Structures are given as structure tokens and as C-alpha cells.
């Protein structure tokens, strides 16, 4: 192939990107032309100029900014975003389709600027479906003494490992065995039993305990280490966290979830993110699976003072209030369902209206709860439902022998919640455990997973 000389060839020659044939051609031309040698020199000058520019160094905060953005996008992914599948699966961030995986779930509710009782309903269909599905389960559980759960009976060895669900495999819906004739349902209840085809309610899981009796949540101080509060897999536990910035807190929590291999339902979070209440407050809800040690580790690591300000127990909430927050409503109903099945007179009690649905056999246990009963709803429907329920809070613990022992013994009734801790802050600074809790002592029976509600709101 014959090659003709050109200035372009001269430029490539300067870069050492010419073939031997082209080299020979250029060198011959250079020998015979002063002008060509001058032009080659100019190429060199341009090159020298560009290389003389100072080297720019990336801003030192860039890695943190990258991480933060990744966390944010993982937690609240855009509809079209796609995190690496392998990465997400292995880091425990696989999106849970619904909250119906066999393990327990953590419901993360993030509010922007207002406590949950002031929040307004979420509008997402998915959330409504979830509520509907739970309502249906409540009614089913209430009307079916023969209620059975396939998953609970299945040997643990047959269950998939928690935290990782086989890719492409949808979460299995719980198999409910019920006697339709035995279901006492009101029209409203029957209406609430509509279960969308695409909605899969969270499956129940074995009961495994409740609050530690001696934990006074409201009196805890920073640095305190309290006993782990066993909960049933049926329970939904609520933890209200005051944060500096919701987005940062979400990101930090997501990191902790990932670090502890807790599966998050990012789809739900995205749905919640898009919803806004009339006063501009927002709700975020992320369902995650969590075993006891996963949760404890997560809580233990919520130590950044510039993110997490305070944790306090979510106080008794009336249905009237809960109607303003469907996610919490979901938690309430899930909890009511637990109570109805367990039939315990534990710390958390279920409103009569809920009992009517769920046949819960709980009663008020203390003055605090009784006082809540006196709250008056403002409308007739709310009046019918205006009852309170007690939510549970889980905290990391250092000494778990007793709870582990109780878990090993199987079912137990939930201990009483402390009336003086209903609204009290657990801490005014980030809680720093003295040591990482060993929730499941070596050799002890592995506890069932937890279902917890995190409620976050920004510091005012």
C-alpha cells in the first residue's frame, strides 16, 4: 500500500502512531524540508503547552460524595436506574417485591418534618395494596381458628437463607388455610379483604418473644446498653428516630442495611418518596428483612451524631392518628394480627375494633394505655376505630442469655411496655453500645427474624 505524505501523518509520526512504512516516508520528507521540520516542531510545542498545564486534583470530599450519591440512589432508585445485580444481591440489597418474603421485615418510615401521627396518607397504589392485603390477612386470621401457615411448619432447613432471595424468584405468599364460614366479617371488613392480585402480604413467621420486662426505654441514656427485646416474627416493631437530615439518614441506614446484609424493599421506598402530604411532609417506607443480629448490628452502628440525633419509642398510636399514615396503619394491622394469633396479653395490645377483626385477646395493661383509650376521634368512622395499640421497640443488647433462653423455649407472652417510656427519648445523642451485642449466643438457637418499624423525622 503506497502512503502519501500529509500533515496528519506528521502528527501521527510525532505520537509514534505510524507504521514503519509511514515512518520511513515521514523521515525522508523531513530530511528534505525545513518547513516540515518547523511544522513538526510546532506539533511538539502544542504538545508541550498542553502538558504544561497544572495537574488538577480531585476535591477531597469527592469519595464521600460518590458514596452518598450511591447510597441515595440505592435507597431511592429512579425507575430506570439499575444497580449491579450481583452487587446488590451479595450486599443484601436486593429489592423485595412486597414484604412477603419468609423472613421478618423492617418497615422504615421516614418523615420530613413531622411525627408520624401528623403525616398524611400515602397515595401509592403499592402501599394501599399492602394495607389491603394485611387487612385481608387480619380478617382471615380472625375468622379462622384453623389458621395455618405453611411456612411456619416447614422445617427451617427447607427455607431459603434469609437476606438473599434467589434471583427472579418472587416472594412466596403465605399459604393460609381458612374456613370461610367461620369468618365473622362486617361489610367494611369484607371490603377491606380485597387482595389485589399483585399484592403479597408479609408472611407470618414464628412467634419468638417480645419486650424484655426490665427495659425502660424512655430512661435510657447515651451509652446505655439494654437487653435485646425479643419480638415475634409477627410483630411489627416501631422505632422513632430523630435525624438531622432525612436523606442522609436514609443513606446511612441503607449503608448499615447493606453492611449487615439486610434486604431492603427499595421499590417501596421509591414509591413513598414520590408521595407527599398536603403540608409537604413526606413519608418513606422501606421494608427490609432482618434477623436479630442484623438488626442489632444496624442499631449499634447508628452512632453518627451528625445523622442520628435521638431515638425514642413510638408511643401509643390511635387508629385515628394512624389513618393519617398508611404505613403505620400497616404496621398496626400486622401487629394486631400477631396479637390475634398469639392471643397473648403482652405489652402491646390491640384496639377493640381491631380485635373485632383479628379476635385479639389483649387488654390494656397500664394507665398509659388506658389513657390512650380516652382519646376521642373526630368522626364517626374514626370513633369506631379510635382505639390505641402499643408498638414495640427493639434495641441492641449486650446480655441476651435470658432472651435467647426464652426464644429457645419457644413461645412466650410479650412483656409489658413501660408506661413511662411511651414518649420518652431513648437518647438525646447517638446511642453507643459498649460492645457489639451478641444477640444469638454461640450454640443457642437462632432466633426468628424481626419485623420492625423505623420511624424517622427530621430534627426541628
Amino acid at each position, binding site marked *: 500500500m503506497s502512503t502519501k505524505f500529509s500533515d496528519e501523518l506528521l502528527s501521527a509520526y510525532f*505520537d509514534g502512531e505510524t507504521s514503519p512504512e509511514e515512518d520511513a516516508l515521514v523521515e525522508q520528507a523531513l530530511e528534505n524540508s525545513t518547513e516540515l521540520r518547523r511544522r513538526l516542531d510546532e506539533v511538539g510545542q502544542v*504538545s508541550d503547552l*498542553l502538558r504544561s498545564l*497544572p495537574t488538577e486534583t*480531585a476535591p477531597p470530599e*469527592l469519595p464521600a460524595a460518590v458514596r452518598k450519591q*450511591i447510597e441515595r440512589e440505592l435507597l431511592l432508585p429512579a425507575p430506570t436506574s439499575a444497580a449491579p445485580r450481583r452487587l446488590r444481591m451479595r450486599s443484601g440489597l436486593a429489592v423485595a417485591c412486597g414484604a412477603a418474603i419468609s423472613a421478618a421485615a423492617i418497615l422504615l418510615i421516614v418523615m420530613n418534618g413531622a411525627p408520624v401521627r401528623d403525616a398524611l396518607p400515602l397515595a401509592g397504589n403499592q402501599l394501599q395494596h399492602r394495607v389491603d392485603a394485611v387487612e385481608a390477612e387480619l380478617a382471615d386470621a380472625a375468622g379462622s381458628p384453623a389458621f395455618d401457615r405453611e411456612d411456619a411448619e416447614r422445617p427451617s432447613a427447607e427455607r431459603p437463607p434469609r437476606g438473599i432471595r434467589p434471583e427472579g424468584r418472587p416472594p412466596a405468599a403465605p399459604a393460609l388455610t381458612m374456613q370461610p364460614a367461620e369468618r365473622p366479617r362486617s361489610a367494611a371488613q369484607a371490603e377491606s379483604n380485597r387482595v389485589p392480585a399483585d399484592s403479597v402480604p408479609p408472611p407470618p413467621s414464628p412467634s419468638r418473644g417480645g419486650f424484655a420486662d426490665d427495659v425502660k426505654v424512655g430512661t435510657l441514656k447515651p451509652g446505655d446498653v439494654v437487653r435485646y427485646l425479643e419480638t415475634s416474627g409477627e410483630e411489627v416493631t416501631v422505632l422513632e428516630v430523630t435525624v438531622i437530615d432525612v436523606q442522609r439518614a436514609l443513606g446511612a441506614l441503607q449503608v448499615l442495611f447493606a453492611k449487615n446484609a439486610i434486604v431492603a424493599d427499595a421499590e417501596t421506598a421509591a414509591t413513598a418518596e414520590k408521595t407527599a402530604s398536603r403540608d409537604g411532609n413526606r413519608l418513606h417506607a422501606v421494608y427490609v428483612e432482618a434477623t436479630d443480629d442484623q438488626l442489632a448490628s444496624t442499631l449499634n452502628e447508628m452512632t453518627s451524631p451528625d445523622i442520628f440525633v435521638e431515638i425514642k419509642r413510638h408511643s401509643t398510636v390511635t387508629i385515628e392518628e394512624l389513618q393519617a399514615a398508611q404505613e403505620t396503619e400497616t404496621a398496626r394491622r400486622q401487629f394486631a394480627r400477631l396479637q390475634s394469633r398469639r392471643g397473648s396479653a403482652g405489652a402491646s395490645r390491640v384496639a377493640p375494633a381491631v380485635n373485632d377483626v383479628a379476635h385479639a385477646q389483649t387488654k390494656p395493661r397500664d394507665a398509659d394505655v388506658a389513657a390512650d383509650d380516652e382519646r376521642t376521634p373526630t368522626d364517626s368512622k374514626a370513633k369506631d376505630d379510635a382505639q390505641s395499640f402499643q408498638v414495640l421497640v427493639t434495641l441492641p443488647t449486650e446480655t441476651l442469655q435470658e432472651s435467647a433462653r426464652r426464644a429457645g423455649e419457644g413461645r412466650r407472652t410479650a412483656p409489658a411496655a413501660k408506661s413511662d417510656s411511651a414518649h420518652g427519648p431513648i437518647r438525646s445523642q447517638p446511642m453507643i453500645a459498649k460492645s457489639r451485642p451478641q444477640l444469638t449466643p454461640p450454640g443457642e438457637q437462632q432466633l426468628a427474624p424481626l419485623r420492625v418499624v423505623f420511624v424517622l423525622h427530621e430534627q426541628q
Partner: protein
Amino acid sequence: MIDECLSGRTDAFDRLVVRYQDRLYNTLVGVLGSADDARDVVQDAFVHAYQKLDTFRGHSAFYSWLFRIALNAAASRKRKQRRPVSSIESARGENGFEFADPHPDSQPSHLLERSERQALLKAALAELSDEHRTVLVLKEMEGLKYEEIAEIVGCPIGTVRSRIYRARNELRERLHVLFQDQT
């Protein structure tokens, strides 16, 4: 390190960021002509890289793959954000010197201080087309081979060679004052 990232070790990706951030940032400052834009694009590029990490097959160098992502992010950003392009004229104004008369006698070399030359060079670079500026920066500032540049920008090697030549030629014409000064 990439395998570690894919295995779920988030600290491994942090190390990837630290390893490549300066190089990518420096190059993007040259390509985009703006430190702020470069910072944003680098950040976006790393996030996108994280999201697509499982698609990296290792057929190319990681940096080439990363830079391709960065270029896409830059293009996307540019579409969204049309900003005024700096020019030699504006650079002159900003730096308070004029080259109206390039004659050596009236243009003492000492006037062309280093920072001024750099400002002029950056302005001239900014006036190149995106295609020309990108390949020239990758060649001169990154020291990449034509083949690597072709892979990054997604065009044949011959096109890279042509673009580099044209970019140099155009830049030389825009910077003739500097050359006169140097001579």
C-alpha cells in the same frame, strides 16, 4: 478490586474511587474546561460505574471503561445544561492582557507569564469542538494511545488520528501569539 466490589465489599469501590478520581478529574477538567463540571461529572461517572460494574467484562482497561462512562455523563450533562463557552477573548479580558498586536517588538515575552499562558491555552482548548478537544486531551494529558482513545470515544483509529491532527492544527492557529512569543 473490581471482583471485591462485585462481591459486595463497598470499601473496595471506595478504593477504586480513590485510585482513579484524580486522573479522571484532571482529564475532565481539560475536556470540560470547568472544575465544577468536572467534579460533578466525575461523581456521576463513579456512581454510574458502580451501577454498571457487573457489566464490565475486563476486555478493556477499567480506566477506559470508566472514562467512557464519564464522557457519556458529560454529554448528558451538557445537554441539560447549556453554559456559555469561554473563549480566548473572554480569557483575555479576565486576565487583563491583550494580544491585539502580536508583533514581538510590542509584545514582550515577560508579559506572558505562566498563568496567563495557561489561561490562554485553556481558553483556546475550550474553543475546540468537543470531539477535537476530547481526543487531544486524552492524547496529550492522558498519554493514551490512539487505540485506547478510539475505544473510549467509540470511533476508528483513523478518525482519532485525523481528529488529533485537526485539533492540534486548530489549537496552534489559535495560539499563534504564544508561539511567536516563545520563538
